[in-house]
């Protein structure tokens, strides 16, 4: 059992009404985050995948969040600062290497 097993179960339950419809998108987005961050355990992941394969709204929310995450990460990654040429040399010098 992983760190978030119980949290997942409780939160997942709160996301859906008795009929199984997604009623709490905000909490569901927390679950999506856990899945996208690869922090959900196998059991939680199976429950999640089963749900998004049958619930259009859940699937839409997941796909949207996934695309948004990928797009933001891609653009942030291209914005890395160029490392100063002399930095590695200065570090070595400061520790007498």
């Amino acid at each position: 059992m992983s760190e978030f097993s119980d949290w997942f179960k409780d939160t997942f339950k709160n996301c859906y009404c008795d009929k199984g419809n997604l009623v709490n998108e905000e909490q569901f987005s927390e679950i999506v985050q856990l899945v996208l961050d690869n922090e959900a355990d196998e059991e939680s992941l199976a429950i999640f995948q089963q749900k998004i394969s049958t619930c259009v709204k859940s699937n839409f929310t997941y796909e949207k969040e996934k695309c948004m995450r990928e797009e933001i990460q891609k653009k942030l990654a291209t914005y890395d600062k160029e490392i100063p040429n002399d930095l590695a040399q200065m570090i070595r010098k400061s520790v007498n290497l």
Partner: protein
Amino acid sequence: MSEDVLQDEQEVQRQNYSEKEKTEIFDSEFMPHVDSMYNFGYRLTFDEDDAKDLVQDTYLKAFRFINSFQRGTNAKAWLFRILKNSFINEFRKKSKQPAKVDYNEVEQFYNSDDAGENITTDLRVETVQHMIGDEISGALNGIPVDFRTVIILSDLEGFTYEEMSKILDIPIGTVRSRLHRARNMLKEKLAGYAKEMGYNKED
């Protein structure tokens, strides 16, 4: 960061490396992370010289306390932790950056019932696709440093929740919730920016 903190945090047996081993560890395990360290430093300070100082200071401490580092363990996480602590304990005090945001207050707001109303859910993927890296980076820089940090560690550096928990000295559950709030803040910033720039208009 004091020597005590560095030693206590690891709770490992103190090593007794030879000079040759120290050099090997420094070169093979620490130096490959200079780029990531510099970018992390820059994203915390927004200043190239300050980032450079912060990274140099981090490496100096890493070398001084190298016997607290266990060879083969996660050097990158260890270095990030030193840099983060240096930033909080020493650098931020003397830098030109505004005082630390009380993130408990911000977290309380995001936990409140009103928060859901304010969290932007209508930010469209297409809107983000229209933006350039500079704009997204600007939005990230606009959120409080403690929230910005979790996004950098997770989405840019690929640390796990457990690693982030150790780097930041916070429980793993707090990592999860803070990351969620941080991403919502970023979306809000992006949505606000998109509105300002007219990106939200239907094509």
